């Protein structure tokens, strides 16, 4: 693969990250209200106390100066100190990122597998009853609002299946070893509902894209040629149709994996799953700029990185792109 191609893509990625940094910085400051102005209504607070906190965190300085400082700090890997947690943003982000990856990776793997499988069958048996059943059900689930689907699953799962309501662990006052078999089973029990919510929402997209690109491939002349050569159906699907139809799926999976790092805000909020999505939601409520910037930066970097990898993978999968 051409080095020039990779370098060009890398340059584009870095430029995008810089743009995102700048955009986020100003975006959160356009939001009405400031983290400490919100405290003012708290009992025993006064405007002098608010001003004192503002200067403690440098919020009384001109915006451009705050921006320059922010860029400087970000470059050396210092994402700042959270206004509410009073600890470095990176220390808050990393454990949350792990929690999100556990949940989202599982959900993505399941829904990709399901999506490809169902999409292949639906495409192969296009127009048939199975296609109808798969396409309608996934389309219906795909178009359902996540928070609403999540709430329904929460009620049904808790009331009729005795699943836990929230969080990642059951608490009984003891410190449990997270690697003990019982703890892992407990974690899996907590994962069922949020994971199901995500899988139901994500699968539809994969089914539809898989089916769509498969149908495109089927109309190609080389498929007819292959069929005329007497190649078996299974081989035809695997070697000729699937390989070509897999290209758009690569992009979709890459983008979704990148976005997955940002957590699913709605799902994490409903199930109080302590991931990046929930962190973002809470930081937004308290106008915790450093945490918000940190969360958005992580998401942006993940999406851009995954796109960069997808571009490289694309070049590998499709020789036409390399030479173009």
């Amino acid at each position, binding site marked *: 693969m051409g080095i020039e191609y990779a370098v060009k893509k890398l340059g584009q990625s870095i430029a995008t990250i810089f743009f995102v940094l700048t955009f986020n910085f100003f975006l959160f400051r356009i939001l009405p*209200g400031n983290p400490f*102005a919100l405290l*003012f209504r708290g*009992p025993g607070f006064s405007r002098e*106390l608010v001003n004192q906190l503002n200067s403690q965190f440098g919020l009384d300085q001109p915006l451009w100066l705050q921006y320059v400082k922010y860029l400087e700090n970000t470059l050396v890997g210092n994402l700042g100190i959270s206004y509410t947690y009073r600890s470095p943003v990176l220390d808050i982000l990393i454990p949350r990122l792990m929690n999100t990856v556990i949940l989202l990776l599982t959900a993505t793997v399941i829904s990709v597998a399901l999506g490809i499988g169902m999409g292949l069958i639906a495409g192969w048996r296009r127009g048939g009853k199975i296609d109808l059943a798969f396409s309608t059900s996934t389309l219906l689930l795909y178009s359902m609002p996540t928070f609403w689907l999540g709430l329904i699953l929460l009620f049904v799962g808790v009331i009729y299946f005795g699943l*836990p309501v929230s969080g990642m662990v059951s608490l009984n006052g003891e410190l449990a070893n997270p690697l003990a078999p019982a703890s892992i089973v407990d974690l899996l029990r907590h994962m069922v509902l949020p994971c199901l919510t995500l899988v139901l929402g994500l699968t539809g997209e994969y089914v539809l894209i898989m089916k769509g690109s498969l149908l495109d491939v089927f109309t190609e002349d080389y498929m007819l040629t292959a069929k005329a050569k007497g190649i078996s159906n299974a081989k035809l699907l695997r070697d000729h149709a699937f390989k070509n139809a897999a290209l758009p799926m690569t992009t979709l999976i890459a983008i979704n994996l990148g976005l997955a790092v940002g957590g699913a805000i709605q799902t994490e*909020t409903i199930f109080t799953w302590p991931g990046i999505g929930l962190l973002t939601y809470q930081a937004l409520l308290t106008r915790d700029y450093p945490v918000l910037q940190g969360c958005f930066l992580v998401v942006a970097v993940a999406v851009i990185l995954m796109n960069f990898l997808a571009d490289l993978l694309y070049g590998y999968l499709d020789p036409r792109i390399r030479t173009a």
Partner: protein
Amino acid sequence: MVGVLSKLVTILTSVFMFALLFQVPMHPARAQTSPDTFSIGWDSSPIDQINPMLTTLYDGGAWVVSHIIYDKLVQSDSYGNIIPDLADNWTYVDPQTITFSLARNATWHDGVPFTANDVVFTINHVIANQAIYPHIGQYVQNIASARAIDNYTLQIKLKAPDATFFSASLLQLIIVPQHIWASYTGNFSTYTDLPPIGTGPFKFVSWEPNSYVQLDANPNYFRGAPHIKHLIIRYYTSVNAMVLALQSGEIDLTSPLLPPTVVASLTSNPGIQVFTRPDLRYFYLTFNEFPNGTGNPTLRDERVRQALEHAVDKNELAQRVWLGFAQVLNTVVPTSLGSWHNPNTPDYTFDLNMSAKILDDAGYKVGPDGIRVSPSGVKMIYRIDVPSDYSEEYRAAQLIAGWWGQIGVKATPRLMDSGSLGNEEAAWQHDVVLWTWSADFLDPSYFLSMFTTSQDMCTPGCLGDAGWSNATYDKLFTQQSQETDPAVRKQIIYQLQDILTAHAVYDPLYDNDAINGFRADLFTGIPPGVIPPFFYFGESGLLLSVHPIGMATETTSSMSTGTTATVSTPGIGTDAIMGLIVVLIVVIVAAIVYGRRKKAQT
């Protein structure tokens, strides 16, 4: 074919959904925790840090947790009375000097004995770090010095006599261990204080920010070990999830308060007891009376405000907005502050004719468009701004606008982000605002302080949002703040409330209830009283007397006062029912649309 299929799907789904609806209600099983573990759900501001000195909000998770782990010199009982905590008793040497005799058997969670030196250290530490402790720092502002006479005798000298020293300052001032805090050399504004070492009834075990805190009973607690072994505070992002967790046994008590709409679904579970106590806050209407403000100037006329107050039906508001779970108020001191609230202050009765008459007499005539105009030609057109974090109050603003419309006043309710609304008030640009004040302590001084000239006449604004000033009020306020005889002080506090209502400075609307659900089938021993439970988690009362059912204790298992409701109608929560109905509608609509589209194609 497709039509038949989708109809079939619809019918099957409906049957399934209705089957769900009429199934046996959830059995109050308790799979998740052991019987001596008491779990509290929490859905207010998140538990984002543990350091007690950095807590900023009284309803913040951090505040609640640190008040359980740490003790103060004094605490409040469930009726709001000041009772001993680390201080066994105290005497006033003179109005500015207090001698405390301290508990002799208190130890820190690491085994080191507690002494008067810890208190002296704490007070000096907060005084020295006021710049980074803006919130807790204000409670030491009136302390001139603190001195340990011996290990268990402490003397505090005040700068001026202070009526609120116990009920406000000492109730907030958490005592930290000198042997741990004095050895920290870093910046205290980012001190995590992990693990926190206190003297309280529960010891720190583990904490996952914004998820949960696990605590264990302190067997050496100097006032006797708690009956429960483990205490868990679990954070929920939605009140629906918290209610579900109570029903499924994941938690045993909700906090800080539930909306009145979930009461019906909780009472359907026979194991759950719903109890209510007045919250430490109240909702009010403020009028922009500031002389140089840019709000509608007619509001500076006292007669106009009185007329507007006659045109607000507070009983109706309490019924419609809080479904009756609120106490109508005649003064700015809410009923939750017990005897500090003056029940005899005459209020403006709801009377639209009287209201119209006051305006007619004052020369505010109805114009050709039906809107009244002041003698100087200003139309009575107002905005009623409501902060978006209290969106349920928008309904109240709409009802008020309706009544005012009937007396020729045009009012438009508007939801605003609270940060922007605060800025608008500070610049005196508002007309009428519906907002709330809450207290972090059991003293009326905070609620009354915002009407003093120094707090209500600043540009940009200080604490107050009325822009009102009155010399008699200021004088009486200063007088009460230095009056150490509670009976005399109460008379002055009553007078202050009378003045405010007579001048229609605010229109105090109501004081809502803190509604909570409790697993009465598993635990007992919530002390009777009036203070909402979330406030006295930190006061040992609740957590020391709660115990699992079936465990023999000396505590009488008396239940809370207030509304109790344990109706045993089977059925799952209204939220679930509503959700399922919505599922049905969506499925039916989707099926119809899909069927039609297919038909059109063929």
